[in-house]
């Protein structure tokens, strides 16, 4: 079968099988050769791609719920969407959620995803009490901060390279309503938006859309969206079927001019400043989930997301340089997002570090990769790193510089036989 991920690049020929019981999975794992777990394929790059994959989607049962403490035990194929639709009406919401609800719990742990509240709540692993992991020999171990903590730290953010996550116990947060009190601020440049992020740091959620085609004194023109759970409004939520982009857009639709037009439109149709308006939680967290297959607007050739984070001290200078460079290149991105992250968490390969993260979606084209290589050098020079779950092209050297703990991770893989068993196109490229 043909297999790809959200970026639709690359597309490979692969053999895939589903599992519904641990026994079915074990049969796949102990077979000769290597494999990788595939959740809902919302990673952008090649981290879930391999000639042989196991699909977790049918391993999706909710096993236990403790309504006193908001603890859920579930299998790794359960989607965040399912957790929301089951538990939000009962007053519980995810403690950490990325910008899409269409990912699996296994994928959330393996990428140690972060959300708009990273600066206060940390990564997804911070709400994971424990999980079961299937190792290369088919044996299952329970991992938590107390038990097999070494495996816990390697697996959260470990991109499926330590084994297959089977079940997890995660902690939800109590909410009173399915609404958010949102504050929106338009910012004319990078200085203003940095200022805004600091100003609204107390709010649990914040993120900014940023226009990557502006340069000079307008560089970093952006719109901050911050918010907190409302305490009024109902708990009902309607996660309706999205409308879908029906076919691949032809390549020429997306160019510097159309993106510029879009960005202008977007910026000027946002209110200059709004305080605490009540908005439903779904479009606040998951604006893109209302459009199915939106990855098709990047055309047949696919796209990638370039997500970097720089340490706080270097963020202003570094981002200014990088944004100017992007604007000069004219590689516009409809979706560019800026976010202030909180402190690192000590997992081997988790992405966030205290500082600013920038993410941009970019159509795959010939001149893109050499250009990104150039950006890589700036990112590394400023002490930053790139997000593995978005990556499809970074070099081994960039990986090693960005993730100083790579060596202990690689050692663990070596000694536990993971290196031969769990591999992806990404792990082979990065030689980890």
């Amino acid at each position, binding site marked *: 079968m043909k297999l790809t991920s959200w970026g639709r690049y690359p597309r490979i020929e692969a053999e895939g099988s589903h599992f519904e019981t641990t026994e079915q999975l074990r049969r796949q794992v102990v077979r000769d050769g290597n494999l990788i777990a595939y959740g809902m394929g919302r990673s952008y790059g090649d981290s879930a791609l391999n000639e042989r994959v196991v699909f977790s989607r049918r391993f999706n049962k*909710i*096993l236990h719920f403790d309504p006193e403490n908001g603890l859920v035990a579930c299998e790794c194929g359960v989607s965040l969407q399912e957790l929301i639709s089951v538990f939000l009406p009962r007053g519980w919401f995810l403690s950490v959620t990325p910008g899409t609800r269409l990912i699996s719990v296994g994928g959330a742990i393996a990428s140690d995803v972060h959300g708009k509240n990273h600066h206060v709540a940390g990564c997804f692993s911070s709400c994971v009490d424990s999980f079961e992991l299937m190792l290369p020999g088919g044996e299952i171990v329970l991992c938590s901060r107390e038990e097999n903590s070494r495996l816990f730290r390697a697996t959260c953010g470990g991109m499926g390279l330590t084994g297959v996550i089977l079940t997890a116990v995660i902690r939800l947060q109590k909410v009173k309503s399915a609404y958010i009190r949102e504050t929106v601020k338009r910012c004319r440049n990078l200085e203003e938006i940095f200022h805004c992020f600091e100003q609204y740091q107390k709010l649990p959620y914040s993120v900014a859309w940023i226009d990557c085609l502006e340069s000079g004194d307008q560089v970093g023109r952006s719109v901050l969206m911050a918010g907190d759970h409302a305490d009024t409004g109902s708990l009902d939520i309607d996660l309706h079927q999205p409308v879908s982009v029906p076919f691949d857009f032809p390549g020429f639709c997306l160019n510097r001019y159309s993106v510029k037009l879009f960005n202008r439109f977007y910026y000027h149709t946002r209110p200059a400043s709004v305080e605490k308006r009540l908005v439903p939680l779904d479009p606040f967290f998951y604006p893109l989930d209302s459009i199915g297959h939106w990855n098709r607007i990047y055309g047949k050739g696919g796209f990638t997301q370039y997500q970097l984070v720089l340490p706080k001290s270097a963020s202003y200078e570094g981002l200014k340089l990088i944004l100017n460079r992007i604007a000069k290149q004219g590689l516009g991105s409809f979706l560019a997002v800026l976010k202030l992250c909180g402190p690192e968490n000590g997992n081997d390969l988790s992405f966030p570090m205290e500082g600013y993260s920038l993410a941009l979606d970019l159509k795959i084209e010939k001149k893109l990769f050499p250009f990104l290589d150039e950006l890589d050098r700036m990112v590394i020079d400023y002490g930053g790193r790139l997000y593995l779950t978005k990556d499809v092209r970074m070099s081994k050297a960039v990986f090693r510089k960005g993730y100083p703990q790579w060596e202990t991770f690689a050692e663990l893989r070596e000694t536990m036989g993971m290196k031969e068993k769990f591999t992806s196109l990404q792990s082979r490229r990065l030689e980890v």
Partner: protein
Amino acid sequence: MNLLILGANSDVAYAVAGAFAGHEKASILLASRNMELLEKKVQDLTIRYGVEVSCCRFDVTDFESHASFYASLATKPDVVVYSAGYMPATQEEAQKNYKEALKILAVNFSGAAAMLEVIAADFERRGHGTIIGISSVAGERGRQSNYIYGSSKAAFNAYLSGMRNRLCRRGVHVMTVLPGFIHTKMTEGLDLPGLLTAKPEEVAEDIYRAFRKKKDILYTKWFWRWIMAVIKGIPEMVFKRMSL
């Protein structure tokens, strides 16, 4: 409402359970062979929908057990969904080995018929109940690659239609469900046409809606009615040379 699902480990059955639990708050009994899976589904459905769910072992090819199985149920169902099915990835084995062919026939037809007869007797006596048989459009015309499975479904269709005729004046409703392609473990290895292939949840919603409307025959997704009308309309002389 009490719902009994036979062959409850089918992917369609799991979705049907969800639809009836969600819309009707039905109490559900899941009956199938693989208990490990069933027990997980009991937990899952209970938590998701806050309804009463239980499970028990049931093998439809164990004909002897049918009567005692039904007698052992503490509360008798109001609605029964027959969802067990068996379709090997290719028909070759069944062509060579009659045991494989008989297994196809037993799971899809003879076992179903024997079991549903026990239930129909009870429903008839109570003057109440709905039987939903999940058959297949494959039963509407035999094709070279799949006619053993197809004929088991054709037999099931005729069976359901006759039973509907018999019970319609007794307050018992019988519904025939004719799905086209569905993404489930049954079709996992097959290369299905994406646009024509439904998700189990879509089929389940269709089934629930048709149940509310007391439909006799449901094609799901809806366009299969028209596709099958065309396929059935092809003269045999032509059809025998085609490879559909």
